[in-house]
């Protein structure tokens, strides 16, 4: 019976339902017209008042209009449901990944606590274990914070603190911080080019975006991390291109990497950790800044380039940027009043 399984696919069900519906309407129109012709011929002889051509035409037109409206409605509902099904599948993946991401550090913390409870662990080892437990506790804290912040960002409940800043200077500062945080040598991340312009940014949010990109470059580079950040600007945009020498992203996946919960499963991947939220978070942050992010990769083992474009304060998207500054100012005042 496997050959009939395709009938269960939502697209097939939708097409068959549409065909059934259209056939029914076709039969109905045929029936209506053929009856109408008879009625037209005989009606005059029975009772001339019954025949009103204009009323019949209007009924037919209204009927057709309603038919198109119903078809359109069904199509839209189908598209919406299809999206929901896809999202539900991705959500299932997310639950699997988040379970792994939460349970692994928890297992590690439990292991060290039970070890110290069960054995006489030398002092130096104890210190090492405590440091590993703290590492895991921080990982858990970061994971939980990310989930809460993304949820807040989606519901617009996160207070941003936007301010006008020198584009180059903020990049240099944030990348210096990232080098220390990820314990990367100076030459692992190189900044080239120049961008003498100003833009409106929330420093903390931009740090999250940069950290995510650097973390990805680290996770998906098999050997040494080599990240180049090219800065440039034109009349309206400040452009940052993060190019790594990692395993690359296939053309098929390039479209989906910014989608919520999306993760790439690849046998060549040197890393399997992650929730599928990182790049979605980056995209949302950049979108909130009035900018956009895209990715280009020549494919396997050819590295990837993430391009971020932010509007320049003086020349682009002024109304939106000014509204961001106003919101931040208001929130700042509220915080001071409290």
């Amino acid at each position, binding site marked *: 019976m496997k050959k009939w399984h395709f009938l269960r696919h939502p697209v097939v069900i939708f097409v068959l339902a549409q065909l059934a519906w259209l056939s029914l309407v076709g039969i109905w129109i045929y029936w209506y017209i053929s009856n109408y012709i008879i009625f037209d011929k005989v009606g005059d002889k029975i009772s001339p008042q019954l025949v009103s051509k204009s009323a019949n035409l209007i009924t037919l037109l209204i009927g057709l209009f309603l038919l198109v409206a119903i078809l359109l409605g069904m199509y839209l509902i189908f598209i919406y449901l299809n999206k929901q099904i896809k999202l539900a599948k991705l959500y299932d993946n997310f639950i699997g990944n988040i379970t792994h991401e939460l349970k*692994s550090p*928890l*297992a590690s913390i439990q292991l060290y606590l039970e*070890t110290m409870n069960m054995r006489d662990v030398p002092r130096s080892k104890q210190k090492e*274990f405590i440091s*590993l437990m703290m*590492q895991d506790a921080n990982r858990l804290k970061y994971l939980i914070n990310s989930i809460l912040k993304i949820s807040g960002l989606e519901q617009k409940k996160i207070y941003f603190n936007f301010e006008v800043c020198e584009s180059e200077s903020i990049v240099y500062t944030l990348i210096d911080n990232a080098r220390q945080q990820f314990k990367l040598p100076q030459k692992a991340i190189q900044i080239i080019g120049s961008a003498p312009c100003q833009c409106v940014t929330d420093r903390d949010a931009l740090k999250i975006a940069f950290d995510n990109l650097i973390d990805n470059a680290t996770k998906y580079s098999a050997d040494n991390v080599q990240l180049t950040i090219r800065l440039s600007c034109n009349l309206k945009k400040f452009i940052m291109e993060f190019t790594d020498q990692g395993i690359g992203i296939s053309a098929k996946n390039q479209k989906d990497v910014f989608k919520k919960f999306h993760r790439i499963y690849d046998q060549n*991947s040197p890393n399997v*950790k992650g929730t599928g939220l990182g790049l979605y978070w980056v995209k949302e942050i950049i979108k909130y800044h009035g900018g956009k992010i895209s990715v280009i990769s020549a494919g396997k083992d050819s590295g990837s380039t993430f391009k971020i474009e932010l509007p320049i304060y003086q020349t682009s998207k002024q109304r939106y940027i000014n509204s961001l500054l106003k919101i931040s100012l208001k929130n700042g005042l509220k915080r001071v009043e409290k």
Partner: protein
Amino acid sequence: MKKNKFVGSKILLVEDEETLAVGLEYNLNEEGYQVVWAQDGKQALDFFNTKEFDLIILDIMLPYYDGFEVARQVREKSPEIPILMLTARTHVDDKVHGLALGADDYMTKPFHLQELLLRVKGMLKRKMWYKEVTISQPVYCFGNNEINFANLKARAKGQEFQLTAHEAMTLKYLIENKGKIVSRKELLDKVWNITSEVETRTVDNFIVRLRKYFEPNPAQPIFIKSIRSAGYMFTDP
């Protein structure tokens, strides 16, 4: 804690989480085992192909090759090495898949250290018992059946097939106790190292499988007989 008689056993620890691997390695070393740590599926297979191990502790979500693939490739070459899957994946499908690929046990994270160490010890105990009894008599024939306990290959009803480690160990234990009644509990203890998750029904399922393989008429067994309210008995008429 009692002195561990399996001191020196070599364990391949396959775990990509460094913080967890360091703690596991420390505890296994403290128990007297020699531990080799592989950080991904590729490295695990490299180590397995170049070194000898007595047991493998295997995570599932691994870079390059996942734990299922590692278990599959290991089982192709070595049907008898004990594999303990240690993973954060708790879904019953993962557990069934892992066990079907030949894992001997499955533990989910977070786990209790003492339980893990006891399971490792139990698996090594079973491996040693199996090795000892197999060296003395690797091939056993009964009726028209022939079983090679060294490579787990069996020939019955004109066909050659591969037994799983548990099937072979169940049969071996019954043969070792030929003519004696072996209770389900005893089999659970000797073959499965009894755990709360394994019930006596598991033994019955294995016996049904073994009868299907080797009995001319599984409904009326002549080799593996059921002894009512007592267990099973192997006879070789």
